[in-house]
């Protein structure tokens, strides 16, 4: 194909024209004739019994159409919102999954939990109605602080110690022995701060029901409309799957937070049938803060043992993970299979044991957010490694080199279940050190000190497991669904191509990259390939976009489908050229045999107008494929942060950030770079700015942009990015996934730099200026 649009080209995104002109269609931009509006009734308490809900005053307001509560959804037989991954505790028992009705029925368990909704002719009327609903609550003592949850009274009936599961992975005896015999043990105890994802488009739904056809249509802010349909039909049982259409139009960012099946979209769809009118609901940002899933929130004690040569001998990790009040859709997998399995990092640590206690608290549910478990794992490993190097007086880069898995070690079986496919960690580190001018750091530090400032540098050599995942393995580990992806490549009679993918694009640019892949495969012009996604009515099936899997899994499905198209076309072309298929070669969009040639467009026309056609072949040129990955992919890289600290105020300036990542083969370097930048910004946000804080009463203390700090343009420098490449050896594109790397690698790099600057062993995230100032005071006081 032409160089400008094929695989590897920085093709400008075709989705951009609608976004830069304001012509994007996000859910709230859509309307249906006769639509009514929903406003949710939300708990003001972290834990309370719900008594009588009196909607009579609300119903008296002109234009209020209905007041519904959890009693109504329950009476209609609506099922619970399920957690899709069954984790087993170390004693073999199943995790405890507390019942999670879409609308709370008898008890509310976090501030903002919906227990009802008011439907009105206008949004203003519905709001007015919601204010007039009188609800009796009997307050109960909440369990809002993670540290005390295990000792507190259970928030759900029959729950011992508020424990959902007590999970482990690895060889405990061997790890204990390795640590006991280690020449040096580095131990750290820290929290991984609670984050609130904050995609800039709030969640929204436009729900409708056609009483004649019995068909439900839900337009909503979803990263995986097919999964939403599956859950709504199989578990919540709103309607049968074939009568349920879920459309995710333009979606304004997700970062994981729009994977999940939430109460509001569910209840809106149910209510649309009850009221007999389309219903629109759009979250206000204040609602998003309270009711979108939150993320991270771990307390961890971790110990790394090293022998006299500085080789890692064992890693022991004990984590308490906050799951919030209910298990959200993938909540149980995040602090277990997406966390414990990554603790080997880039290193040959022979013995690893991790124990994770997942606990319930009276806070918003916690689930996957950009990185999901892997940022927490990278933080544990990379904070420990950096700290160990400092304790031993070794160059942190050197200590890492000494312990890296070497290129000849692949495939590498870690002691925590995963088999890494390919990688070259030394190459990434070396390139990052070069870009960061690591040797020049002492001089820069001296210059900062002359200016009365402290300067620090920090490394983070992260690994992630992406492209979830072989279905059989995942299901054997508790997954409730397969993790393949589906795709369809339809060559139209005139030779243009419509591609259907089960992956969903909400910023990732699939409409461009997937077209690059297919146009490259089929040798057709990029502009003749259209990508369709996000509509269960148009796309056969899909599992959606999360875990940096779209290209590795969804893209691979399209390659498979393209291969089937080419194979069928070869038979048609052979017939047209009066030869046999094995005499026909396909290249650059044309079938050739000797000096004869048939373009794929000519073949497509013949397939749909089969005048001269093989007898035993069906007409048409459209193929579907499901691709089930053979393994995870393992992107990895080195991130280096450099910070300068104002010693009088503690203000931290991130002065440089280098990221060198190995994502395997690259389809569109421009888009990959954009993903890296965005991920780093969120990682820096976690390290320096963001923290969702509940008080002891379970009230969220910073539920607006007035006090929850998203990074702004002037909080960040321009990042320096580069790539190394060891192609993935088990998917046809050789790609590994790039969406989460920044959020995974950055927090440890930044905190390593800050602790280096401040001369302290550890400091809590987010490192606010006051925290840094206090650390400096402590240092001064101790005379270090």
């Amino acid at each position, binding site marked *: 194909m032409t160089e400008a649009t094929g695989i590897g080209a920085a093709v400008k995104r075709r989705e951009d024209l609608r976004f830069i002109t304001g012509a994007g269609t996000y859910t709230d931009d859509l309307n249906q004739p006769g639509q009514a509006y929903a406003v949710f009734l939300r708990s003001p308490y972290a834990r309370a019994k719900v008594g009588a809900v009196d909607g009579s005053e609300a119903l008296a307001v002109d234009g209020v159409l209905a007041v519904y509560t959890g009693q109504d959804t329950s009476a209609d037989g609506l099922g619970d919102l399920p957690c899709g991954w069954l984790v087993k505790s170390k004693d073999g028992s199943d995790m405890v999954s507390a019942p999670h009705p879409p609308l709370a029925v008898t008890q509310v368990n976090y501030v903002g939990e919906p227990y009802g909704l008011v439907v009105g002719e206008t949004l203003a009327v519905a709001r007015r109605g919601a204010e007039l609903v009188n609800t009796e609550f009997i307050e109960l003592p909440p369990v809002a602080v993670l540290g005390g949850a295990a000792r507190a009274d259970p928030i759900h009936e029959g729950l011992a110690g508020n424990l959902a599961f007590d999970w482990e992975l690895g060889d405990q005896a061997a790890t204990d022995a390795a640590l006991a015999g280690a020449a040096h043990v580095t131990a750290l105890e820290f929290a991984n701060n609670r984050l609130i994802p904050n995609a*800039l488009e709030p969640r929204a739904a436009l729900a409708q029901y056609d009483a004649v056809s019995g068909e439900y249509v839900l337009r909503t802010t979803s990263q995986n409309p097919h999964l939403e349909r599956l859950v709504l039909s199989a578990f919540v049982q709103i309607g049968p799957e074939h009568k349920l259409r879920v459309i995710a139009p333009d979606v304004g960012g997700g970062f994981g937070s729009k994977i999940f099946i939430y109460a509001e979209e569910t209840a809106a769809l149910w209510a649309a049938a009850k009221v007999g009118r389309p219903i629109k609901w759009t979250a206000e940002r204040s609602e998003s803060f309270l009711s979108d899933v939150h993320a991270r929130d771990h307390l961890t004690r971790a110990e790394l043992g090293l022998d006299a040569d500085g080789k890692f001998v064992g890693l022991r990790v004990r984590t308490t993970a906050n799951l919030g009040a209910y298990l959200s859709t993938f909540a149980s997998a995040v602090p277990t299979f997406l966390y414990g399995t990554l603790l080997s990092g880039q290193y040959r640590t022979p013995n690893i044991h991790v124990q994770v206690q997942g606990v319930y608290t009276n806070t918003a549910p916690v689930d996957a957010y950009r990185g999901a478990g892997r940022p927490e794992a990278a933080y544990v490993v990379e904070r420990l490694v950096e700290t160990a190097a400092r304790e031993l007086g070794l160059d942190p880069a050197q200590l890492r080199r000494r312990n890296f898995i070497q290129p000849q070690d692949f495939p590498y079986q870690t002691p925590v279940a995963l088999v890494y496919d390919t990688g070259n960690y030394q190459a990434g580190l070396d390139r990052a050190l070069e870009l960061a001018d690591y040797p020049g750091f002492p001089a820069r530090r001296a210059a900062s000190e002359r200016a009365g400032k402290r300067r620090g540098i920090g490394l983070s050599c992260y690994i992630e497991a992406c492209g979830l995942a072989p279905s059989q393995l995942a299901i054997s580990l508790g997954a409730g669904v397969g993790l393949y992806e589906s795709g369809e490549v339809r060559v139209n009679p005139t030779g243009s191509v419509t591609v259907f993918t089960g992956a969903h694009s909400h910023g990732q640019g699939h409409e461009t990259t997937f077209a690059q892949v297919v146009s490259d495969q089929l040798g057709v012009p990029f502009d003749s390939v259209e990508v369709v996604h996000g509509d269960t009515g148009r796309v056969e099936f899909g599992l959606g976009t999360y875990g940096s899997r779209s290209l590795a899994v969804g893209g691979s499905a399209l390659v498979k489908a393209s291969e089937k198209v080419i194979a069928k076309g070869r038979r048609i072309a052979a017939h047209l050229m009066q030869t046999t298929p094995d005499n026909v070669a396909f290249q650059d969009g044309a079938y050739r045999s000797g000096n004869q040639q048939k373009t794929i467009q000519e073949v497509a026309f013949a397939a749909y107008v089969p005048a001269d056609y093989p007898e035993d072949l069906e007409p048409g040129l459209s193929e579907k494929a499901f691709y089930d990955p053979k393994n995870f992919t393992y992107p990895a890289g080195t991130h280096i942060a450099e910070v300068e600290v104002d010693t009088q105020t503690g203000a931290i300036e991130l002065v440089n950030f280098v990221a060198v990542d190995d994502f395997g083969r690259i389809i569109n370097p421009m888009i990959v770079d954009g993903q890296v930048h965005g991920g780093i910004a969120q990682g820096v946000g976690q390290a320096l700015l963001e923290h969702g804080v509940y008080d002891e009463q379970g009230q969220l203390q910073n539920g607006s942009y007035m006090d929850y700090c998203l990074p702004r343009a*002037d909080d960040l420098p321009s990042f320096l990015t580069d790539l190394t490449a060891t192609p993935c050896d088990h998917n046809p594109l050789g790609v590994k996934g790039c969406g989460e790397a920044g959020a995974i690698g950055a927090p440890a790099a930044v905190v390593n730099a800050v602790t280096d600057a401040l001369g302290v062993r550890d400091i809590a995230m987010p490192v606010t200026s006051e925290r840094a100032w206090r650390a400096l005071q402590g240092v001064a006081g101790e005379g270090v």
Partner: protein
Amino acid sequence: MAALNKHIHLRVNGVSHALEVPANMLLVELLRQRLRLTGTHVGCDTCQCGACTVHLDGRAVKSCALFAVQADGCRVCTIEGIGGPGGLHPMQEAFRDCHALQCGFCTPGMIMRAIDLVERSDGLDEQAVREGLEGNLCRCTGYHNIIKAVLQGQEAMEADDD
């Protein structure tokens, strides 16, 4: 306690409108709901995210931070008014060219602010652009490419003026 309606006249993207609006209708609600100009987005309820930025008499304002009645007699310009598929504004071009958007939700507000910033400044450098975009949140891009785009858009706008 019915909201008293008010008659207002305003020009939106060059088109005059005479409208009767409830006093408590925000300008952004007028644009999105009444005029169906849905390129202007709402990302927060505390007037901070900047996704609803439009030009009011030529200056960038957050259209969620004023009532429609306050815009009586004013000129309003939204993302739809600065350029379309047939003729993009240089700042729109620059955003596409520099991959300065991902999900696109903050983009209209970001472009409207960027145009205002360039029009009111001389020779912005990277730091000035970063500070100038203080009132606009983006969760996708990490801002790097947005900064590049604004600088490139600045050059193109200056070239257009010459």
